[in-house]
């Protein structure tokens, strides 16, 4: 296997994530899509580690950090979602326009 194969998978996974984040109406869907993007990035990191700099395992270490941050992110995101849902009774993103001027 070459690095190109892993990068291709990663790129496709990432784009699927982007597509989902842009199109899912449900906030949970968006959050899930974001997780997909995170995973794409992690996959890249692991692949680079293996193919380019296998000696220090820095890439894997960084991926671990990323996983942790992603975990933190989804926890807070879901908590926020719960809070919003209690207030507005919806999880559909078009119904939120708190930023509207």
């Amino acid at each position, binding site marked *: *296997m*070459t*690095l*190109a194969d*892993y*990068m291709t*998978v*990663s*790129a*496709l*996974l*990432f*784009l*699927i*994530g*982007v*597509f*989902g984040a*842009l*199109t*899912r*109406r*449900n906030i*949970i*869907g968006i959050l*899930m*899509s974001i*997780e*997909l993007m995170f*995973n794409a990035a*992690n*996959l890249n990191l*692991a*692949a680079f*580690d293996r*193919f380019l700099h*296998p000696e220090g*395992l820095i890439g*894997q*270490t960084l*991926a*671990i*950090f990323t*996983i*942790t*941050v992603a975990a*933190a992110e*989804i*926890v*807070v995101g*879901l*908590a*926020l*979602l*719960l*809070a919003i849902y*209690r*207030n507005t009774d919806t999880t*559909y993103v*078009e119904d939120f326009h708190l930023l509207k001027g």
Partner: protein
Amino acid sequence: MLEHIVFYSLSAVVLLSALAVVTLKNTVHSSLMLGLSLAGVAGLYAALGADFLFAAQIMVYVSGIAVLVMFVVMLLGRASDLHLRQVNEYWVAALAVCGVASVGLLRLAGARSATFAAAAAQPGTRIIGRLFLGEYLLPFELISLLLLAALLGAVFFTHKESAS
């Protein structure tokens, strides 16, 4: 050969389930598919020989995050969701955006088609452990702080509302 079979099947699992995540109408199914996709990524880690990463992925993502998401989906989901569109009207544009971006990304990937693994994979848990407690001690502590903050944040957001 075996390597190829493993890789392509895992990739297929990852990508197809990811597609399912973003296209399925039923959010419960989506979340299940998310778990599958994340597990597939874990498999790819294993194929790359990243043993610790594989373990972390299974523990954090597959058994942690995917399950958490599923909980929330079931907590907030309603029967009416099944009849609503889950994809908004931007999908054409989004597809276009992804298409444009894919040109660049795939080209970038294609440039590496001759890069092979330099050596056989080796177990890395020990090395990663040393890194965490040595060179990367400060980030490691910081990340634990971040987790604590996230924990508190989650409690705060959910608790405040339930109190009122």
